[in-house]
Every structure is written in C-alpha cells, then in structure tokens.
C-alpha cells in the first residue's frame, strides 16, 4: 500500500471480548491523514478514538483491515513504524521519579539518537516547550500541564514523521490547554510533521485542527476541514426548548413546518429540545413558535447559532454531542 499520505487505514475492525461480553471497538473504520496536518479524531467516549490510535501506533493489533504509517505497515513492519512515530498515551509517558531532562534523553537514546545529540535535542525541546524552570525537578512534582509537555517532548525528541496524542488536553485547566494547543499547532509547522490528536473538545478541534474526522460506534461518520464540515450542513441552527413536554407531541407539532430541515427532537431532563437548520431564521422561528402555540405547547429558551461542529455532529450522527452521557 505505497502512499504519500502520512497514514492510510482501511477497514479496521477490532473487538474486545471478555467472558461476560464482547465489545466492538472498531467496526470497519477507514481514514487517510495527509502529511503535515493536525488531524483530529473527534467523538464521544467509546467511539473508538483511542483504539484507532493504539492500532496505528502498533500498540494494539486490529482483528482485520490494514494500516500504513509513514509508508510502513503497522503489522508487518511494526518496528519501523515505531521508529518513525511518537506516541503520547492518555496517561503519562514520563517516569515520575526522573526529571524531564532525563526522561527526554532516555526517549532519544532508546530510539537510536547518539548521546551528544540527545542532550542538545533535549535542551532545545526544553527551551521551546517552556520547561526550563522545571527541567531538572522530578516529574512527580510538576503540574499537569508541565507533565503533558514533558510527554510531548519525549515523543518529539527523535524528530518523528507522525505524532499521536491521545486526549492531550483532558483534565487540564483552560490556560494549560491553550498553551498546549499552541505547541501542537506549532509542531505541524515544523518539518511537515503530521499530528493525530484525539479530543472531545469540539471547539478546540474546530479552531485548531486542519482536518476533523467524526467517529461514532467504531466508524468514521464524516471528515473534512472544519469549514468544509460546517459548510456542508449550511444555514443557521435554531434550538427551541419546550419545558415539560413529550417528544412525540413536539415532533408532531413542528413536523410540517416548511422552512426548516434536519429536525432533531431530544429529551433533556423533563424538557424537550428541538433543533433544526434553516436558511431563513426569522421565518423559521415564527413558523416554529406558531406551530408550538397552535398545539398548546409553551416554549422556553430559543437559541440561534451559526454552524458549529456540534451542529455537524448532530446532523450526521443524529443525536447531540454528549461526551459523558449515555448514547443508547
């Protein structure tokens, strides 16, 4: 499978089975990551993001399907794939009982960087990732944001072609997240490095990634640049909350309204939330509220929004993006 793309994966399938149950993590996922981009895998818990990254970084093996990273097959040529990638796990990559500098040098030496070059490369990373002050303190004494930067430095020190970051910003405060994203976006500008990042922050993926792939239930749902995805659904989003109502009543009331499309009716607590897209927000709002009034349904909050990735998710997956919630 020779290719110019940084990553090419075709029809990946993976199930995890225990005595009690079998879980399908990937159900025929395919993706292509162009070289030199920040590529986001976006989806709720259990969608298959981490499994995809683990297979592409040779940590796990797929039940079937094939994948090439940096031109090497992840199954047959795992060692060369490992040589050309950096991987930052969801946990930590750095040994807590060593200093950032020691950790980064170790990562370089294990991968075949000579002792002298490992030290200079480490010093450069320490400076560019803002780790000067803590470079010689034990990792266990560092903040979450600093630790994450150490993990990333360990993954970059051998100048890989592809870097995988599994939920790099999870659990960080907004300031640390912003600083980390600045680094991630900066990375891809260097030497055509391709960055594959999993995230559940829609707004971050929207603003900072070149390409977004939405994943749900182990399948790729839709992919493109954030602008392409938002343009593909078009129009303006309208959401209307109807307190203490039945979804079927709400659906029945607004189903025949003409100027709207992509109707989604969902229950949130005791309330019902209806979401539509329209090219004429004023007319649509009048028509929707009119229809609700006509059926004796009171409505509460009304929100008008330009297309966001949340809307893209809603449109293609068919339910709201709810990272923590159950999606059965």
């Amino acid at each position: 499978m020779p290719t110019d793309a940084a990553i090419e994966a075709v029809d990946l399938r993976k199930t995890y089975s225990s005595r009690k149950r079998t879980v399908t993590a990937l159900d025929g996922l395919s993706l292509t990551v162009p070289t030199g981009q920040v590529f986001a895998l976006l989806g709720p818990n259990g969608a298959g993001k981490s499994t995809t990254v683990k297979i592409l970084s040779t940590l796990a093996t797929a039940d079937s399907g094939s994948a090439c990273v940096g031109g090497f097959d992840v199954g047959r040529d795992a060692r060369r794939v490992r040589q050309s990638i950096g991987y930052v796990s969801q946990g930590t990559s750095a040994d807590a009982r060593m200093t950032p500098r020691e950790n980064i040098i170790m990562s370089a030496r294990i991968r075949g960087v000579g002792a002298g070059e490992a030290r200079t490369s480490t010093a450069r990373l320490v400076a560019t990732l803002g780790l000067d002050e803590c470079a010689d303190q034990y990792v266990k004494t560092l903040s979450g944001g600093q630790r994450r930067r150490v993990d990333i430095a360990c993954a970059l020190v051998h100048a890989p072609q592809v870097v995988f970051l599994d939920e790099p910003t999870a659990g960080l405060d907004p300031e640390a997240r912003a600083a980390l994203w600045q680094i991630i976006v900066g990375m891809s500008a260097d030497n055509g490095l391709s960055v594959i990042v999993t995230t559940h922050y829609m707004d971050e993926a929207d603003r900072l990634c070149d390409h977004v792939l939405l994943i749900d239930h182990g399948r790729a749902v839709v992919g493109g640049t954030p602008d392409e995805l938002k343009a593909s659904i078009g129009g303006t989003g309208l959401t209307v909350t109807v307190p203490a109502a039945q979804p079927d009543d709400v659906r029945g009331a607004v189903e025949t309204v003409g100027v709207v499309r992509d109707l989604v009716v969902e229950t949130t607590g005791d309330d019902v939330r209806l979401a539509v897209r329209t090219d004429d927000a004023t007319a649509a709002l009048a028509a929707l509220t009119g229809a609700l009034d006509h059926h004796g349904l009171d409505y509460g909050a009304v929100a008008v929004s330009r297309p966001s990735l949340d809307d893209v998710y809603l449109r293609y997956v068919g339910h709201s993006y709810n990272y923590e919630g159950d999606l059965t």
Partner: protein
Amino acid sequence: MTTTAVQPVTVRQVRWTTQFSQVFLRWTRGQLREPWGIGTSLFQPVIWIVLFGAVFSTLKALPAFSDGGYVTFLIPGILMMTVLYSGAWAGQGFIMDMDSGVMASMMAMPLRRTALLAGQLATQTVICLLQAVTVLVIGWLAGARYSGGVVGLLVAVAVALVLCVAFSSVSNAVALITRNGIALIGIAQIIVLPMTFLSSTMMPHDLLPGWVQNVATVNPQTWAVDIGRAALNGNLGSADGLAWKAACLLTVAALLFFWSLRSLRSFQRAQ
C-alpha cells in the same frame, strides 16, 4: 515559541546494549530515589536472621547442626529466601507502569522486548546483590563462618542472583498477564511461603517429613540453597548432584524469562 521544537536529528540503528542500559538506568534511578524501598529490602534479611536464629536456637543441640551451629546452617537458606521474596515483588514495577501509561509509551517505541525486560531484571539483580552481601555480613556478625572461602562466597552469591532472575521473571509474567497489583500480591504470597518451607531452607533435607522431602527435591529453592550451602561450607567438591541442580536452576531461570517475554503479548492483546 521562538524556535521550532522539532529539528532533524540523526537516528542510527540502535544497539541492544544501549537500549538495555537505558532501561537499567531508569529502574536503578527509580530505586535509588525511593530510599524507603531499598532500605526496607536491606533491613528485611536482618530481621529474618535474628528471628529465625532466635526461634530455632535450640536446634544447635541436634547432631545435624553440630559443625558450625544453626546460624551457619541457616545463612545460605536466608540468603536464598531473601532474593526469592525480593524477586517475587519485581512485577510491581510493571503494574505501576501499566497503570500510569509509561508501559504503553515504552511499547510504542522501537525498544526490543528483551531489553525492556532484561534492563528491569538487571536492576532487580543489583538489589539482590546488595541484599546478598547484607545477609552474608550480618550472618558473619551473628556467628556464621564460611569455610568455603572467596570461591564459596562468589558461587553462593551467583546462585542467589540466578534464583533472583527466575523469580523476578515469574513476578513480571504474572504482572503482565493479570495487569493487577492485588492479583500479583496474592499470587506472590501463595508462592513464596510454600517455596520456602517445602525446601531445605530451614531444615536439612533428611529431617523433613517424607512428602515434604519429595516436594523439596523438585523445588528450585532447594537446589539454590543446597548449592549455596555447599559453597559456603566448602563442600562443593564432595556434595552430591550439585551440577545437576545448577543445570536445572539455570534452565528454569531461562524458561521463566521466556515466559515473561511471551507475557508481553498478553499485555499487548489487552490494548
């Protein structure tokens, strides 16, 4: 950011020894920076010598212990028991790595699996070496005498290190397969006590009950204790079957290392 983080570096074909020494350095630093861990591991054999020496002090009246007394008899047993206990916990380090995410990062590097395990075993072996020296010194202070001389001491320590590799490998394999610290503790407890008591650690083989003798004969702990005891007492030439016991011990240690190597696949399957 003023300069770019990623700049080209020369990546060469990496030698096994480089990877091994990096892994060894990592675990050794970790051990040295946890003074409590290394401190207790050195203090533990002292307690055993005092404890067992006191409890079994009346045994010196028995003819079996006539030459040199019970302490001289006991020290080789304590030596092997110490490394057995120490090795049985070795897998705890991998459990911590699996929980933290370090293990996943290591496995995604082009790090040879043998270097990953051997580097950790080497650190474990150094700890066992320190423990062995401690046991022999404390034993000497407690009255034990090593008529086997320098050769005897070296042979006894070498055998202890082989036993350390064997049991560290068991512990690593169990850790990688179960991926669970509680399971590792449970299994270590179940293995370690019977291994010690169903062997010649505390009692000469001939004084053990019949069925215990049978078990002890095939117990690697017995092989190690018998060789160590013969070496320290200067009986390497005269004792029976030592070559066989040494060969069996080395074979078992090698097989157990391969088992731990294979167990890495079990970890990978669970990813």
